[in-house]
């Protein structure tokens, strides 16, 4: 077990999400940065779908009630074990009574804490990903006890992975969305000829961008969307759907992020800049 002494700003349990229930209107959910989730699980030898703790901006204080092995991937929130700094993307042995804390956010936006064999929290519709209205808890609260399987320690020297990070990347790779062909040249130039700024409206459902695009597109009949879909609103705002997005939407879908770029965007915070790069399909 892990005891939550302080939950941090916004911490949730996440895995790869719920794929089987989208036809019933259930969002996919899952770790925002799935690249970091998979890396963390790989370092511990876990299955890639093992549940981890997604930590946003400000880290929690956690007390371990059993021995285990942990790793932290994604953003650098300067994690410390009993006050001593620990390395990211590296397996760390943890003993009963140890306390994990975090410092100031220095890089990225979301960190992932994985434990050996994954967190053993409730499974709802084949996933442990927290989502308000589906899972009993929608985020970590002070005093929560998170179940895990106690594990013997491992030899650290085999467990450091040189990690090719996605944190410093500012290029977001996109493909054309279903309504892309309705855009005119001016709009296309606006999309690919400037930097965009992450708006303060950013969360697990969607990221909005500050810069507006001239919009002449009509709304569409409510149709299917997915994480990574970029919608253009009537006011010219760009909305990039993220992991907790609804399954359907009525705004034109002009672009679609690559899977990797969704993870890149998940590490961006308000004020960060991104550039779109259009990738044409290989014929």
């Amino acid at each position, binding site marked *: 077990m892990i005891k939550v002494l302080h939950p941090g700003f916004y911490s949730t349990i996440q895995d790869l999400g719920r794929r089987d229930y989208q036809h019933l*209107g259930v969002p996919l959910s899952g770790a925002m940065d799935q690249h970091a989730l998979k890396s963390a699980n790989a370092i511990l030898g876990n299955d890639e779908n093992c549940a981890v703790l997604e930590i946003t901006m400000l880290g929690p204080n956690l007390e371990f009630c059993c021995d285990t092995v942990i790793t932290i991937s994604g953003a650098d929130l300067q994690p410390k074990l009993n006050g001593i700094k620990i390395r990211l993307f590296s397996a760390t042995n943890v003993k009963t009574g140890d306390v994990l804390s975090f410092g100031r956010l220095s890089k990225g936006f979301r960190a992932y804490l994985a434990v050996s064999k994954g967190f053993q929290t409730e499974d709802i519709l084949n996933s442990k990903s927290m989502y308000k209205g589906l899972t009993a808890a929608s985020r970590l609260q002070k005093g929560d006890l998170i179940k895990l399987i106690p594990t013997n320690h491992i030899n650290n020297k085999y467990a450091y992975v040189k990690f090719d990070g996605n944190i410093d990347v500012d290029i977001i790779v996109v493909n054309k969305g*279903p309504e892309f062909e309705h855009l005119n040249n001016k709009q296309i130039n606006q999309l690919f000829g400037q930097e965009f700024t992450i708006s303060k409206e950013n969360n697990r459902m969607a990221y909005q961008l500050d810069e507006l695009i001239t919009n002449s597109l009509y709304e569409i009949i*409510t149709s*299917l969307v997915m994480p990574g879909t970029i919608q253009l609103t009537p006011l010219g705002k760009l909305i990039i759907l993220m992991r907790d997005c*609804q399954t359907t939407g009525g705004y034109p879908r002009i672009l679609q992020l690559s899977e990797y770029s969704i993870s890149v965007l998940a590490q961006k915070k308000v004020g960060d800049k991104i550039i779109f790069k259009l990738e044409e399909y290989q014929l």
Partner: protein
Amino acid sequence: MSEFELQYKPFGKYSILIEWPQVISEDVLKSVLSYKEALENFDFKQKVYIKSAYNSILITYNIIINNIYDEVLTLKSVFNDNFDSKYIKSKLWMIPVCYDIEFGLDLEEIAKQNNIAISEIISLHSNTIYPVYFIGFLPGFLYLGGLDNRLQFPRKITPRLKVEKGSVGIGNSQTGIYPNESPGGWNLIGKTPINFFDLTKEQPCFAKSGDKIQFVAISRVEYNEITVQVDNGSFNIESKVTND
């Protein structure tokens, strides 16, 4: 062959979108559902996830689509072979709704603006059979078609921060049930004790696209009685198999 001209579009590297003309109609719905059923019965080489909306189907593959043209040809062949050859079974669900003023917070406003008696709103709303186009927006939220013109009413300019689970509302030309508590901008006309998304059931949502819904007006007392039965698991929603 379909009577509609279909478009096949790549949507990201994992998905293909099939689109019908931009109209909401029961003919398009039937065509979408026939194709969907054919796809669901097709032996894909890998696991796929199939979703539908008013005039589209999205097929999402587990791994990156290698050759989009080959895959589209495969999808087209599925449609040609199976279209109209299948008989789609659908159900008509009778959904009890209490149209009491206590729940129908906007009944009086609609009556006033649309110049129609509350009793007539209730009778028009419950005498229509609504097709279920698809499920989206929230877990268990049914997109229903067929709302009577006289009941159409614009969404609220300022949405309510909290709409109770089971609330029945009208937003522009649509009517629907809030499957869970959520913020909402629809005008509320009643409330159902029925659970539209029940995690304790193997099929969390009893209805599916292509089914039909009819509302049955119940009293406040009946509402309480059915609520008790729903809570202890003894309530069965009345339903019948329909052909079209």
